[in-house]
């Protein structure tokens, strides 16, 4: 598999570490146990197009949101996580 890092360009799979589904959003402080449980444990585990977090730890250390198909492994889009490249926020 090859992932096009938005910062580094196309790189091979071995440079990246997988985390998981990017859909669950960490509940805000004060959220209930049920909400946090859902965030931490339950997954759609989609067979098809998903968005997921990958870490370019063997490269620029950016966290990436990768749109990938779990049936074909085809990658359709890659974008940086909100805080990767944050120095340009507001610029």
């Amino acid at each position, binding site marked *: 598999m090859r992932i096009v890092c938005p*910062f*580094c360009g196309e790189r091979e799979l071995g*440079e990246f570490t997988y985390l998981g589904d990017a859909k669950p959003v960490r509940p805000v402080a004060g959220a209930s146990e049920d909400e946090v449980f859902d965030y931490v444990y339950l997954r759609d585990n989609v067979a098809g197009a998903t968005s997921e977090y990958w870490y370019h730890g063997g490269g620029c250390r950016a966290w990436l949101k990768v749109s990938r198909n779990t049936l074909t492994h085809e990658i359709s889009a890659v974008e940086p996580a909100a805080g990767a*490249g*944050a*120095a340009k926020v507001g*610029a």
Partner: protein
Amino acid sequence: MVDFSWTPRSPLEKALVTGAHGARGIEAGVSLTEIRNFDLVQVMARRGKAADMAKAAKACFGVAPPDAPKALQTPDATLIWSGPDQFFVLSKGGKHAMDTLAPALSGSASLSDQSHARALISVSGIQARAMLAKLSSIDLHAASFPIGAAAATSMDHTSVTLWRGADREDGLPAFNLLMFATFAESLWHTMLDSAGEYGVTISHSEDFA
């Protein structure tokens, strides 16, 4: 009281043996030169401060730091992209060391001294690409990785910073490799293993190539 000396010791002090290595009877296809005792500072822009940092850096170096995987050579420093909003300043002689850069950049960036965290090796020669192809998944073809191209990547499952410097005087390509100091000896042996079939010339230097 006893007298101390604080002699710096390269992480490759033991492993690096100058001279020839590998296949004999052919002209060495790869030259490996360790550059010792350099200053290396990691500069990371603060949130929303990319433009400020670029401005401040320009004041220091005369050029804006690279905003993409490239290495910029200035008369007294090399600025190497190392990730989004960040770059390395590689220099010698203290002009761009941590203590001098910090005041100039501190408002817009966070600085970490990495001078001792890395070993620096110059890989050059007619077989440099063939040898690096055993270590690096990056396409180093002249057209894909021109002079000044840089990459934050991995070799042997270890993070490295790789960039292509100016060609050697004989026109052969030269690559620079910053690797973590604690991995350096291990990676060095892997490099020798990769280069052995081509014949290797090994040296070290206090100066950049």
